[in-house]
């Protein structure tokens, strides 16, 4: 009967129910979009690190992100790393911003990523046209399909200039997007060095693969001791550092999280206001329940059930709209991400928001004097 009474109380005033649901719905959509953008941004920022075949990253000292490492490491560091017990392989990787000159004129920026496919260090992971072998061809480069227009090319076979040399599109990826809005352009290690005009022993990162059974913490400490001018980071540490740089030092992440918090607060206030006024409208019924002998907790459960029902209905509607927004953003430069985990936490947040909203109504009914049933 608690559920029945809660549902009937909600349905009793359809306009107020609509206002409540719209409040929750907007709140959910806003939070979902903000957190979806946050997740999408995080995924973009860490995608290359996450997909690299490395247990440890050796970076130049203080490198702030994947895109911002400089091309300063030499073969000396590589050999030092290779000589460290527990290290199986050390694969060099070149990453640097580079100017991209469009065939039709004008320029843009790309993040040039140089890595040899046979080293299995970091390869473009979602090729939709062309193969890894195609990228080995002279002047070959792979870019993401979504950036073709922005880079002034139309597809495979088109040429442009990247940094100091000409490149030809030989392969296309799909879904590798860049948070910095400078598209990733994948080529071989030496071709990247040539394009950037850096010596052949230079690299931005050294990807360390550990021998089976090696203790990662010990190897990391040993490497850090040997390589005084470099940082030795686990994947997680490097991802965190990149996220800190792009999301928090630039303020973008804070803006997204701030928007999500604001959305939750607005939703909470709207639901609180409508639940409170609904409780006020039904106060004589709650007083009657109290006079009939119901415990306070029984009445609290009715109000919480109202809040819970609002949460479930609002969440379903909100998520439906959020998923539509998500779908619409799939080809944008900053696609939203929705994971089962985020969907679960959004539901938990909605329930929490509605429960908090119920507090004012619960305080109101706690003060009910059942004697008022005789004064109607």
């Amino acid at each position, binding site marked *: *009967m*608690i559920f*029945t*009474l809660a549902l*009937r*109380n909600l*349905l*009793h005033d359809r306009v107020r129910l609509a206002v409540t649901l719209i409040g929750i719905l907007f709140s959910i959509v806003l939070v979902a979009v903000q957190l979806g953008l946050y997740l999408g941004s995080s995924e973009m920022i860490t995608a290359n690190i996450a997909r690299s075949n490395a247990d440890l990253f050796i970076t130049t000292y203080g490198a702030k992100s994947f895109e911002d490492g400089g091309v300063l490491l030499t073969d000396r560091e590589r050999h030092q790393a290779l000589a460290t017990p527990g290290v199986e392989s050390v694969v060099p990787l070149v990453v640097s911003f580079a100017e991209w000159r469009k065939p039709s004129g004008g320029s843009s920026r790309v993040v040039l990523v140089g890595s040899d496919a046979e080293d299995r260090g970091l390869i473009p992971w979602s090729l939709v046209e062309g193969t890894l072998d195609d990228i080995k061809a002279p002047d070959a480069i792979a870019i993401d399909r979504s950036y073709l227009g922005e880079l002034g090319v139309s597809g495979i076979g088109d040429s442009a200039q990247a940094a100091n040399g000409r490149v030809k599109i030989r392969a296309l990826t799909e879904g590798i997007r860049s948070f910095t809005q400078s598209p990733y352009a994948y080529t071989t290690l030496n071709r990247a060095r040539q394009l950037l005009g850096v010596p052949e022993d230079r690299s931005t990162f050294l990807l360390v693969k550990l021998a089976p059974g090696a203790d990662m913490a010990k190897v990391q400490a040993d490497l850090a001791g040997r390589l005084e001018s470099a940082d030795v980071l686990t994947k997680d540490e490097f991802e965190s550092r990149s996220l800190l740089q792009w999301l928090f030092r630039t303020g973008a992440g804070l803006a997204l999280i701030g928007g999500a918090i604001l959305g939750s607060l607005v939703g909470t206030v709207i639901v609180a206001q409508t639940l409170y006024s609904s409780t006020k409208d039904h106060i*004589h*019924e709650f007083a*009657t*329940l*109290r*006079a*009939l*002998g*119901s*415990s*306070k907790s*029984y009445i609290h459960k009715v109000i919480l059930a109202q809040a819970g029902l609002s949460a479930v209905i609002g969440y379903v509607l909100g998520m439906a709209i959020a998923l539509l927004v998500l779908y619409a953003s799939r080809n944008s430069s900053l696609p939203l991400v929705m994971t089962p985990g985020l969907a679960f936490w959004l539901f938990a947040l909605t329930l929490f928001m509605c429960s908090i909203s119920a507090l004012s109504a619960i305080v109101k009914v706690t003060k009910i004097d*059942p*004697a008022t*049933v*005789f004064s*109607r």
Partner: protein
Amino acid sequence: MTTSSVLHAENVVKELGSGAGLVVAVKGVTLDLVPGELTLLMGPSGSGKTTLLSILGCIMKPTSGTIRIADQSLDGLSAEELAKIRRDHIGFIFQSYNLFPTLNALENVRIALDVRGVKGFAATSRSEEVLREVGLGHRLTNYPGNLSGGEQQRVAVARAIASSPSIVLADEPTAALDSENGHAVMSLLSRIAKEQSRSVLAVTHDPRTLGYADRVVRIEDGRIVGEERRPEGINAPEITDLTKRRKLHA
């Protein structure tokens, strides 16, 4: 206190307000309710009858005096403990019915059982049973808005007796009803008292109800000023004139 009484009030006093606005609404009332009896508490407006009903129904706490229900003293009980006494022993009928407009007749009765922990099929079948008992077996799914005043009050009666309380307290049960419905409801209350051996106390100033009373308690200015009992052998509706009753107390 009589040996058979289910409710015993002893020297109950209730003060309302404070300071210059202090009003003593009930002034030393002593009263017993026994099973199988319909008692009318009559008095003019402002005489303290509804306040007394609230105190006897464990809704208000007396300023002083003692109340025992089913041999349990109410002294010092918390609001939640008083609510439990109401759940276990008391059924209420209100002047304006106080039905839930969003629940149908059956659900209005079921909710009274639900707060007492009776749920599911047991609650549904008991609700149907009491609604049939009050003659509303054909109106189970009707909402209060689609029921007449008399029918609504009968739903309220069904709600009050659904949990088989030993005491039924009614506040002006006929005040909002026409003559026919008033008699129907009073007849029902009388039957509940007699056939189900409950103590029924109805606060009223409606003279139409006199014929159904086993006992009439008169209250004025917060004090009981008289108590009259129906003579043996006279059936309820046959007597409407107080002068025909045997006066027990001055």
